[in-house]
């Protein structure tokens, strides 16, 4: 009986350790520090020409909108699996405003933390991309994204997750994202987030009445790659301002950190209870 107990305990502990090694938090890897790129969107400069939408779709083989005739600005639109960015029009107290919507390329993306196959991946330069070969279509990234950005090809037998990639392939060639390149009014500015923050702050302080004193994306969800400046409070432009400043992966941190504790502690506790119970039932 004693040897059997030892074997079951050893087996249980080995199994728990194995599961703990697989499921426990991985140690932080030391990588050379890289700066993230981002895009500054100045909504006071946007004229709603939607050249960015056209350039994006042309670049990636998506549905190219007919900006002259489709009248799409009449209602609020969301991005789709075949159109990775849209421009929406808002009537505000300071007139007509246009806001470009696309993936925010968060510093600590919820989608990347959610993805169990590492298909959603934050590159070192900043863009958050989707890697086809790994994805199994579980759509957990869609559940987790606070901006509801990833779109799924429900009508395909081999569906993709579809969203703005900040033209990662173009960045690798030293080019700017297609939308930035196409913007005629410099409403979109590409650069390192650090530099864009400086530019944004400078614009706010240099033109006191022109902007709301907030750079959307500075602190939201722990900071995003895409930053916005606006002339009116951001709620009026369709932005969610209740997302908090905690990076979203941190919401699961306590749970994931607790896993090894349970995996080591619970088998020991259960075996202890069992030994106590055995002693009680033995006459």
């Amino acid at each position: 009986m004693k040897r059997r107990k030892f074997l079951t305990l050893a087996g249980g502990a080995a199994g728990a350790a194995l599961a703990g090694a697989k499921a426990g938090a991985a140690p932080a890897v030391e990588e050379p520090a890289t700066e993230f790129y981002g895009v500054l969107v100045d909504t006071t400069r946007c004229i709603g020409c939607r050249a960015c939408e056209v350039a994006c779709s042309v670049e990636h083989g998506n549905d190219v909108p007919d900006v002259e005739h489709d009248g799409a600005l009449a209602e609020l639109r969301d991005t789709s699996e075949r159109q990775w960015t849209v421009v929406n029009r808002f009537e505000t107290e300071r007139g007509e405003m246009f806001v470009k919507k696309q993936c925010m390329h968060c510093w600590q993306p919820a989608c990347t933390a959610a993805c169990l196959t590492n298909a959603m991946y934050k590159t070192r330069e900043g863009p958050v991309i989707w890697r086809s070969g790994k994805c199994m279509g579980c759509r957990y990234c869609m559940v987790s994204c606070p901006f509801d950005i990833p779109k799924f090809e429900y009508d395909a037998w081999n569906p993709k997750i579809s969203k703005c990639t900040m033209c990662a392939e173009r960045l690798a060639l030293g080019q700017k994202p297609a939308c930035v390149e196409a913007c005629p009014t410099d409403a979109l500015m590409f650069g390192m987030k650090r530099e864009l923050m400086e530019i944004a702050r400078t614009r706010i302080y240099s033109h006191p009445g022109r902007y709301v004193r907030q750079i959307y994306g500075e602190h939201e969800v722990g900071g995003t790659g895409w930053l916005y400046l606006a002339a009116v409070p951001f709620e009026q432009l369709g932005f969610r301002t209740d997302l908090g400043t905690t990076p979203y992966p941190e919401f699961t941190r306590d749970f994931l950190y607790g896993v090894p504790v349970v995996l080591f502690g619970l088998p020991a506790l259960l075996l202890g209870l069992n030994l106590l119970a055995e002693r009680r039932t033995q006459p």
Partner: protein
Amino acid sequence: MSAEPLPLDPRPSVPERSFFRFLLGELRPRGKWLTPFNLISIPVILLGVGILVVRFIYGLESVSNLNQAYPWGLWKGFNVITGVAFAGGAYVITFVVYVMRLDKYEPIVRATVLNGLLAYVFYAGALILDLGRPWNIINPVIGNSFGYNSVLFLVAWHFMLYMVAECIEFSPVVAEWAGWRRVRRVLHSLTLGAVIFGITLSTLHQSGLGALFLMAKPKIHPLWYSEFIPILFLASSIPAGLSMVIVEGTLTRRAFREQLIPAGDRAHEEIVLGLAKGACIALFVYYFFKALLFVHEHQWSYLGSPWGWWYLLEVVGLVLVPCVMFAYAVRHRRLGLVRVAAVLTLLGIVMNRLNVSVIAFNWNSPATYHPSWEEYVVSLTVVFAELWVFRWIVRRMPVLRASPAASRGE
């Protein structure tokens, strides 16, 4: 083990004939074909299989109402997330029988483990049906892509390891059925280890299913979102599992009457009352936890809205009410009332899991979702298919009736 002689297995011991011929014999169908269950389940299963063929050719949109705002629907919300809560009976009962050595519950442990194992297998199957690219499910398994940072990665791995543990727990029954006596002895010695492993895994993936929604904070209605969702899911999986054992036990004892011994009825009554006690206490604790969160998160401000009424229905109507019912029924030995309370508890769990994953999800978005008829059919298909396998096993293996080894005193 017990003093009374238990009925012996009438079949000849298997070493005298080859296992292959034995298996062929076992594969022959038994029982009547025209039962109400068969008449309902066979058309549903056939229809479900047809729907799935369409789904794999034309994509999820052709058979479901899933959309960009509602990526998870009935299959994930009910078959996977609720189904796993219902299968929680296995880890509770094995804890009680094998860890705490309460032999009173031994007669039901085999059926409970079998149900748990089949539930996980079929609900993992339902998950695979819901994936966009099911063939890539091997990626997080074979080491091609370990997404350590993902709660879903943990849930997936624990699912798989738990099925292994349950297989080990159930394997002595298979060995008895096949007559492999030495194998059975070896497997039996692994039981405690498998049970301890299984309880640990269950704890983590029951709470893990709740942890999946931690990052959806701005998208789930405040009455259902909390940083403690993992603990709430774990806590509610206990009464869910116990209630399922009560309901399932009632149904199987009626369906497989011919396998039971008359003396077992009295013992089963005591078992049900014991389970009801456990469910009562678990619901009580869960209710107070919800009350604590209600106060802590200032949730009373939401009570005026329709969501508030829906919340009260779930927490008061389907948690507190069955808790009180269980208490009264145990005290006055009212078995019928116990079963009613168990059904109410199960309804409450379904409601809670669906609320968190689908109904109260993206509640502030203009988009809506309700399952298509095809989704309902496939959901039922998965459940019916599981029941078919359950029936096949129970009719042939010593799950409900005493095992030959036990009757020989091994």
